[in-house]
Structures are given as C-alpha cells and as structure tokens.
C-alpha cells in the first residue's frame, strides 16, 4: 500500500500573531511557532496506521517557504518514511489552484493508492486542495472523514454530516480529507526523533508548473472588538420593560 500524505505547515493555532505593517497579511516573525496543520496531522496519523496494518510506505508532500523541515521531520518521527518538499515562496503564496496543480505534478508519478490530507489548513481555511486535486487527477474523493477502514480492496469511510453519519466506499486510488475525530495523532518517540533525521527528504525549488496569482489578498485585520454590553438590574417587571425599550428604541431590533 502506498499512501501519500499532504502536509501543510501552519502557524500554531495558539499563536498570537500581528498584522504586517502594510496591513495585508499576518506578520511573519520569529514568535510564530510552525506546526503540522492540525487536520493534516490526522491525515499523517491515518497514513501511518494504514502502513502499520497493511504494510507499504508513506510519503509526505509539502509546498513550503522555509519553515517546514522541522514539521516534516516530526511527521517522519511519527512514522512517515520519506518526504518531498517544494520550497518556493511564490508558489506557496500563489492561488490555491496553482498549488493544487503543483501537488498533482509531484503526486501523480508516485502512483499512490491513497492520498490523504486535512479537510482544511487552519491558516487559510480554503478546504480546497483535496477536492481540487481529485478533480485534476480525475480520481474519487471522500471529504471530511471521521472514521476509516482500509482493506486490500479499498476504503470505507464515514463523514459526520448534520444530524447523521454518512458512509462511503471507494476503490483505489482515492483521495481522503481528514476531519477531527478520525484518530488521535501519536507523540513521536525519542528514538524515532533521531531516526527521522536520516529519512530521505527530497527538496526541490519548483514543481515545474505555472504559478499564477489570480486572487490577491489585499487586506488583513482583526475583527472589531465588541463594546461592553449593558447590565440591567431591577425587579422582573423592570427588567422586561427596560429590555424591550432597549431592543426597540436603542438597538432597533424589535
């Protein structure tokens, strides 16, 4: 079984980031801790579990801009066998379709049975790459899966939809996007951390595909802080009266 895991490196979700001086994006500074995107990490764990059950290999694929190697090595310490890193800042900041095409260029020749990634990256929240890659490669996709069974024949996966669980089956090759609940990613063990340093990581400057930037992010800002609410006190009758007055005359909701 050959499994490719798409691994995007994102700022730690607990990072208290700043907006850059141009006001167009978050400021890249040394205070940002970069981690494996949390949903991609479910994908990494799932890929390793598949290998442990059925044998084979797990290859990670990353589009990066210089902050990625530690996280790829962490995935290797978890059990990924080898990695491919396209280090190209222009590509990483290009539009999602260019990134999906670059990933297709890298992934297609690997002839993977399963390609798995997170349902979204926590920095851009596009939820685009998995389904787009499936379209570009013309193979099936099951998105936002929360459980997975893999046999030699194919996969059975479930998705938590509103008020119900949906169950899907597919033959190989298939793309899966991972949701929370799929698994609990393991903590790398110390001997594996040291072994990970020696695993092959193929670093390239380009995937050889066209980089287009059809959409430009022009502004980033923090959400407006909410003003403090007004606390009303009094008897129940007074409270109701003041509440209704406030909603009708001040807030004009009623």
């Amino acid at each position: 079984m050959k499994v490719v895991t798409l691994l995007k490196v994102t700022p730690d979700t607990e990072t208290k980031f700043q907006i850059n001086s141009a006001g167009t994006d978050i400021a890249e500074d040394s205070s940002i801790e970069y981690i494996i995107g949390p949903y991609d990490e479910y994908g990494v764990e799932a890929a390793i579990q598949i290998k442990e059950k059925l044998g084979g290999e797990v290859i990670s694929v990353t589009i990066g801009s210089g902050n990625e190697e530690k996280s790829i090595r962490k995935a290797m310490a978890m059990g990924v066998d080898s990695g491919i890193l396209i280090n190209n800042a222009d590509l990483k900041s290009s539009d999602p379709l260019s990134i999906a095409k670059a990933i297709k260029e890298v992934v297609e020749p690997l002839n993977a049975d399963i390609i798995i990634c997170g349902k979204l990256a926590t920095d851009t929240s596009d939820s685009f790459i998995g389904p787009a890659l499936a379209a570009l490669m013309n193979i099936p996709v099951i998105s936002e899966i929360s459980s997975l069974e893999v046999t030699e024949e194919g996969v059975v996966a479930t998705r938590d939809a509103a008020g119900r669980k949906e169950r899907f089956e597919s033959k190989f090759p298939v793309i899966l996007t991972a949701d929370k609940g799929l698994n609990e990613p393991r903590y790398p063990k110390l001997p594996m951390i040291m072994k990970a340093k020696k695993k092959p990581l193929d670093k390239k400057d380009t995937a050889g595909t066209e980089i287009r930037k059809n959409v430009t992010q022009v502004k980033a800002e923090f959400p407006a802080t909410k003003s403090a609410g007004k606390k009303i006190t009094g008897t129940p009758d007074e409270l109701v009266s003041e509440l209704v007055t406030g909603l009708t005359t001040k807030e004009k909701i009623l």
Partner: protein
Amino acid sequence: MSDDQKILRESVRDFAASELAPNIPSLDVKQEFDKSTLTKFADQGLLGVSIPEKYGGSGMDYISTAIVSEELEYVDAALRVIISVHNGLNSMGLLQWASEEQKQKWLKPQAEGKRIATFGLTEPNAGSDVAALETHAKEDGDFYILNGSKMWISLADVADNFLVFAKTDMSKGSRGITAFHVEREMKGFSSGTIHDKLGVRSGNTGHMTFDNIEVPKENMIGELGEGFKIAMSCLDNGRFTVAAGALGCAKASRDAAVKYAHERKTFGKEIGQHQLVQRLLANMQQGIDTAELLIWKAGWMKNMGIRNTRETAMAKWVATNVASQSADDAIQIHGGMGIAGGPDGYPVERFWRNARAARIYEGSDQIQEIMQGQYAMGYRQDKPLRKELPKWVPS
C-alpha cells in the same frame, strides 16, 4: 534549538499534557505513585534520552535531557524526579564510570526502560556530610557484604537497580567510599515509602535497608575508594535535571499567574493592570530567563565534554530558588484562591510545595552557596577525573 530538540519539546509537552497531567492533582491528594507512568516513559523512550544508542538510549544531546526534565516538571515535579534519579544520577553515572561490560549488562536495560534505576547516597545521619556514611561493605571472598540503610531515596519502593554508596574503609572518610550496583532481587534488600511529605506527593520517596547483602565484586562501579568522586559527578548530572525541572515549575507558575491575572478583576480592571502584580511577573520572568541561560550553558558544556561542576551547581542553585519564589509569587497573585489546590482548585499551591524540597536535595542552598564562594575565592578547583562524562557525539 535544533529541529530534533524542538520536536522533542513538542512531543514531551503534548504527551505530558494529555497522558499525565489530568491525573496529577488527584494522585497528589492521595499521595499515590502511578506505576503506569514508568511504562509510559519507557514506551516514549524517555528513560534513555542522552544515553548513546549502543547502550539502548536515544542518543540525543545532554540539553535534550534538560528539555525533558523541564517539560515534565511543568506538569509536576514527581514526573521529573523519575528522570533525575533514573537518567541523571544513575544511568549517566554508569555511562561515565562503568566498564564496557557493566554498561551492556546494566545501563542498556535501564536506557531501554526494562529496569528502573535510582541512586542511594543519603542516609538518616549523612546528607550533605557524605563522608559520614554509615552503610558499609566488607570484602568476603568474591563478594562484598553490604549492611546499612538509606533514606530520602526517590523511587526506593519501585526501582529495580540501585547505585549504592558504602564505606569499604571506615577509617578513611570520603576516600573510603565505594560505589556498587545493587538489585532489588538480592537477598537482604528491603525498602519502604515515606508518606506525608510537603511536596512531590505523587512521587515515590522512601528508604531502603541492606541486611547482609552479598554483592558480587563485579558489581563494583569504578575502583575501590572512588565512590565519593563518582557520587559527586553523578550529582553534576542529577543537579542538571533538578535545575531544568525547576525551570519548568517556574514557567508553570508564571503561566498560571498570567492566566489568573487576566481573569481576575479588582478595582474595575484585571489585576494584571496593577503595577505591583506586574512587578511579581517581571521578577518571575527575570528569574526564568536567568535560569534558562545557566541551564543551557551547563548543557552546552556537557555536550562539549567540558567539566561543568561549577556551572551545573550554579544553575541548580539559581533555578530552584527561582521556582520557589515564582510559585510563591504565583500564589500571591492568585490571592485566597492560590492556597486552594486539589483536583478542583488551582495548581500553584502544589507548585509551591513541590519547589521547596529541591532547595534541600542534591545539594542544599547552603552547600551551593559554599561551593560558589569557594570557587570565587580559589579554594575549590575541579581536578580532572579518571573518567569524564563522554562528550556528545551526534549520530
């Protein structure tokens, strides 16, 4: 930090937060040592951090042992104590002093986590005054007959292997001490647990007694009469883990205090806005930054194979006092809630209780102060040892 040090920190932090932290407050209340912690440590590879791969360890650098110690004591001192005695005092001592055959026989299973190890130096009547040891070993054919008792021994009731120091010549003071590898299975060994400690209440601390134990001569570590030097160099590694653990306790105290100072409001604003609260936090940060640099300096010297008795002792002295003061100030910031601990309370009173003993064990504040004074005056100089801790060789 190198990538592997960063991955290590992330991994141990996540492991400790998920697998260990939830149970600590109730274990602390019950004064219960959870033996499954040892299995978990072994499974993660934490029991052989800086031991070379050929002796069953992970072969990480010595700073990595500090990172593990810090992250574990960020949760609770009882977790770090395991690293101090198993990795620091015993296994790194064997790495430095044991013969190749002894390392394969005893160090390897320890680093692999198959045998838990601790260190037996302190006695009821011999703490800082090591030369006053009363435990003695008398030569008898192929054995030494070991008699005596040890006290304040971490993991006394759960460890399998013990690095024990005993007088082999009662007339010679510190030069009459010899180190032995002792195992729980040896006839005449018994141990017990000490209860009602102020802190480290989820850790196992105890005493052990040796009643005519026949210790084979090949269990002698180092040479006859070399025990004092061995014990002191083991302390260079034990103190390093105590210092790093204390740094974790100080950071945990700071983080708890900052969180509470954001949440709690007095006089119409969150208490962190008050300058006298900020002063306490600023002092904590000053101590944390100072201790961290001292620990990393000592760790760097270990990596380079440079003698670091003075620097490690300084790191231990400073860091344990920073932890103690930070936990105390964190309680102050929490006000009345700061003294309410347990599973439903705040952790800072536990940090305060845990921090206290570290200013006594592995060299009290006073021993540290005297050492630094003697170094400053030139009365104390570290002479080269017959065997030094091997410098770290990247694999």
